[in-house]
């Protein structure tokens, strides 16, 4: 974007592109000459299960530069209405992780690339406000009041924050393991109950339930299946007699010659390949 262009286009129109996205400009600080473009749109999916992204109040934001953290985005979008929450991720879609919640130190490192975000406003006016924001008024990431650290400052900060006290870490581990043991116990409890259900009641009836085949104590594994097949094969082979009949002997010889021939042909092909590449010129 050349600065001259900015002066000319003094319209207050929002820029909407095919696909329904509104283009917002974003620049790092007020001195920046180049701008990134954010593409925003109201969040719309056919079947949204997660309740934390209400359809009418959520704004879907694409192309968020790496130096914009959740807080920065929250700050930026507050001008359109108060922001309830911000989620950032690498790809569109659900960021929810299955399994138990992990503490910060145990979470794998995040990728520091461009992100997509879901901004949830307090009320739906924020979404429309953001969508009608004019293209030529850029959002500014790092301002005097809220400077954003990048480069060496950021790395030093990161390094400083990377330390965790041993006691604290130990506590995190302990609480997780306690939780884990509890879950483990519950699991075994559940299995026991299910196993009980399968047993005959006093009148000799067995309750047959639908589905949930994982009721066995150990799931049967692929490796075990494979082993069984191999065992069968071996048994078969052991029973076979080699070179007993004349025709068998003849066959073996025939196979041998075929083998030699095949090798010869292979070699010949290799040579022709090498020759094509002129690999025989000694100097």
């Amino acid at each position, binding site marked *: 974007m050349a600065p001259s262009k900015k002066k000319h286009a003094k319209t207050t129109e929002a820029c909407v592109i095919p696909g329904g996205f509104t283009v917002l400009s974003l620049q790092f600080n007020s001195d920046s000459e180049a701008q990134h473009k954010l593409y925003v749109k109201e969040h719309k999916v056919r079947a949204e299960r997660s309740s934390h992204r209400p359809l009418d109040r959520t704004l879907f934001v694409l192309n968020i530069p790496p130096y914009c953290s959740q807080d920065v985005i929250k700050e930026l979008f507050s001008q359109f209405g108060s922001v309830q929450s911000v989620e950032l991720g690498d790809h569109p879609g659900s960021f929810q992780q299955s399994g138990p919640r992990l503490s910060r130190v145990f979470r794998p490192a995040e990728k520091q690339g461009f992100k997509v975000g879901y901004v949830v406003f307090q009320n739906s006016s924020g979404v429309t406000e953001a969508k009608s924001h004019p293209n030529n008024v850029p959002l500014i990431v790092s301002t005097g009041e809220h400077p954003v650290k990048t480069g060496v400052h950021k790395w030093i900060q990161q*390094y400083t924050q990377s330390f965790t006290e041993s006691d604290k870490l130990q506590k995190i581990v302990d609480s997780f393991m306690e939780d884990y043991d509890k879950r483990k116990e519950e699991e075994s409890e559940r299995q026991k109950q299910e196993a009980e259900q399968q047993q005959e009641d006093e009148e000799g009836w067995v309750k047959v339930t639908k589905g949930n085949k994982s009721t066995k104590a150990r799931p049967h594994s692929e490796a075990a299946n494979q082993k069984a097949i191999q065992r069968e094969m071996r048994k078969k082979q052991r029973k076979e007699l080699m070179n007993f009949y004349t025709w068998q002997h003849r066959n073996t010889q025939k196979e041998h010659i075929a083998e030699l021939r095949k090798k010869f042909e292979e070699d010949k092909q290799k040579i022709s390949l090498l020759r094509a590449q002129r690999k025989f010129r000694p100097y």
Partner: protein
Amino acid sequence: MKNTQTAAEMILPDSSHEEEENKAPAKAKRSKPEEDEGEEVVYHPVKLSRSDLYRPPTAEELNQLKEAESLFHCSLLKMQMEELLKEVALSERRKEQIDSFVQTLTKLLQTVPQSPEVEVSDMSWLSGAVKVPFLLVPKTPKGKFHMAPPASVDLIGSYPLGTCTKPRIVVDLAVTIPADILHPKDVLNQRYPRKRALYLAGLAQHLTSSSDIGTMHYSCLHGNRLRPVLLLTPPGKESSIFTVRVHACPPPGFYKPSRFHPQRNNIRTEWYTGLQASQSGSDEPPTPHYNSSVLGDLLPRAHLQFLSAVSSQCSAFPYGVALLKVWLHQRELDQGTGCFNGFLASMLLAYLLTTHRISNTMTAYQLLRNSLNFLASTDLTENGISLARDPDSTAPSLADFHNAFQVVFVDPSGHLNMCADMTACTYKQLQHEASVSMQFWDDPTVDGFHSLLMIPKPMIRTSDHVFQLCEPAKLQYSCKKLNLLSELMDHSGNYVHTALPFILSLLQRGFGQRINLLTHSLSPEPKWSVESEAPKHKAQPPLSFGLLLRPELAASVLERGPPADSPKAAEFRQLWGSRSELRRFQDGAITEAVLWDGQSTYQKQLVPRQIITHLLQLHADIPESCVRYVGAKMDDVIKVGREVPSTGEEESLLVIQSYDDLSRKLWQLEGLPLSITSVQGAHPALRYTQVFPPLPLKMDYSFFDKEKFSRSLVPKEGKPCPAYITPITVICHMEGSGKWPHDRLAIRHIRAAFHIRLGELLKKHHNYTYNASPTHLDIWKDGLVFRIQVAYHREPQVLRESVTAEGLLVLRDNEEAQALEMAIIHRPLLTSTLHGLQQQHPCFGAVCRLAKRWLGAQLFSEDITEDTADLLVASLFLQPAPFTPPGSPQVGFLRFLHLLSSFDWRNNPLVVNLNNQLTAPDYTEIKNDFMASRESLPVMFIATPKDKKLSMWTKQAPSVQMLQRAVMVAAESLKVLEHQLMDGGQIQDVRVVMRPPLDAYDVLIHLNPKQVPLLSQAVDPPAVTFSRGVMTGSVAQSGGALPVIDYNPVSLYLAELRDAFGDLALFFCDPYGGTVIAVLWKPNAFSPVPFKTSQVSARNVKVTGDEAKTVPNVEAILEDFQVIGKGLVKSLEARTERWSF
């Protein structure tokens, strides 16, 4: 010229289009994506139809198959040799060309006009345009000379015999000087050789007027100035194809052979020195070399007859000779003074045939094998051989020959020693080569054909150290000092050849057990235009000598001599002169000894240089300035020592000792819930291959900030980046037990608990400062940081397991599991294996470090990783054929470059036989598996005993393009480097190969040197240095605040750049102190793509009608480079002119 071109072609696979790429590789890469890969012939597994495979065999076919199976390792070798022979044989068309040219030449020669008789010294009959090819000192004796047409003109040598091969086709033509020009007494005092030279000059004068001749040069046979020859080429464009060499010979039988007995004198001292000799003629010293050079002129026709007779009986004879010639040529043994040329090769085969060591029915393959076997097992310097069946009574005995010459191989006449000019060293080299060749020929795991006949062995890549005598003229003084007047007379004034054998034996004595082999370059045959004077002896290029070191003894600083009172002591003192002194040793012995200087390995490996300069100065009057020692020239770039220059061996050892101590302490820990089952290093520093081994540091606390809780040091804002401290990874396996949970997250937490516990225990017992984190435990010990990672051997298995919807437990490989397995199993194993290799080959580590320094400097570190590079270097030591394992870092590095550039990565797997675990069947298996699924395997395929099918070390990188570039750069570097090392006249700056051309890149990000912590490791370290919070002084063993670990802004910056822009561009940086990040846009980065929610990162939308397309937002990206690297980036250099949108 042609030679070098074809050589270059061989080095570069698919060179045709790469040569153009030379200048702008990136550009070419962009315009030509992978399509041209597909054009090449690709190997597909053979599919024979059933009927083809199972049809009844004919007897002939059966024979052929059987022969191929039993005679050769496999039929492949046989076929390869046949193909090779086709390549070197002369085509029919070429032969016709040669025949017709020889015919015209013969006619021309017959018409040489008669000229009036003049004195030999009178050369007025020659026009000024043609000079006499002879050094006319001392003055010409009396005699008459006149020109006359030759008595006969015949073809001799290899061409009529059918053993002439490409390239450098030379056709020998013998022109018989008419008998009336010569006089039987002419053999005396160089009269005959001078007449011969005059006659050649006469012929040359006659031929200058003819238009049928292309160029005319003089040369001399095998560099012998007494035997000038005339080199003629055909006119026009054929001139470079072949050369006709015109020899002038006396009529057969003109001189009696008995006159040339090696004990007889044919040059009078009185005539040679010009002084009136006081003694009588009978005391004259014998002149064996002069005699044999005259005699050599008499016999070529007889030799041709003899060889033709032998050849006619053995059909494979010409092919055997051709193979032998190729073998010799690759070893640089077939040209120059005292070489083992094609003629000797034919004579050797003839000898083996006539003595029935090989039979007439053998194939070329067997002839080559038997002759190499013979060479390897026979020492011609001790027991000469003779082709003479029944020599006449006047013929000298073998003992006579041995007295006069170093190597003895007598021709069929019984009078001529064909190896007269050969030095014992050259023959030893030949023997060594033959025995090495036999060794790897018998090894089924080596590609015998390739190493035997295809790989050239130039001296700089063969010998561990090389040195040159720069000014051959200085050898004149040596002759004087060594008192070699009569030998000088015998060699007719050629002081280089006179002094050479004496210098060689002197050095051999001086080196003793330190070397395996001493070789020297064969001085090339001079070649000069007919219009210029014969060049002087001093015009020779410098003599090069090669040393094959014995690693365990070569670097010893002490030369222990005999006890002071033994008779040998005098000899020892005589050899070493003033350097020899009496010393008392710990065992009580008092002996003569010489002590050389040297503390570090780097200094010690230059002990041979001290020996050479000392001995040459002392005994041969050759000043030190004349000796150019080429060894350890590369090592500058990995030098680390401060007071004592060192290349890091000592520092590595220190790290390993500290690690051993830590390992012992870990084993001894008590109070762990589970016991430790193994402690393994998994870091290059623990196998001697870290380019710059970590140095123990002492921190200056005032330079840093402190963290609140742990009181660890953290970098201070506004100060230069603190010194980089490498964490040295140590893997600590814990005992397997039922207590381990069977869940990935739980395992991760338990590991963290172990890290804390280990840290606490180490703190308690040994007072080490530690920092525990979920992934590792850092220990600050002896000024080094060890990063301990606890591992559980079943964890990769747990990561692989998953349960399907049906409740079936399946194992699915995934990247996470592979990465973990690599870190906790494969890397520690590789580290300990390579550590073992270092124990066998002391220079392994140094070679690795040089290689990795080069890769880093050329910006390949990301593509050819540390582990890959170490494996490549390991292969040089484990399978050195056709060389011996490298004995110095320099030669190892050169071979690394050669391997990288010449290996056929597309069609071959590189098998690295670590610990010698692979057998021949394994090799075939690896090869077959590789062939069967080539397309899906990594471009650079490296197989190891633990990894035969996948090549896990090269799975991620390099890509095709990067490998191609690496191959190209390696070839170029090798060329530049070898040129520089062998030629003292060049600018001597080996760092040239470490400075990558940056003009191929699109954006250069210049970094602020203040924030580059490894600045001092740069190829060209800048003059300014920054304080980095390090104090001098002794390093505390334990305690103290935890320093700043693994904090390198450059790598953090690179990681962020790759995360954000990895799909648009490639980022390159030298990890060792590079201050530039080179950015290259990906080939199709700028092509517009349709708007998609998953593909809008850093892109601008362009709306055309109803369609929205996106292109990269370059301005914003460039600004982001600055924003992300704030404080680190100094300036940005965008080369917009290179970009193609």
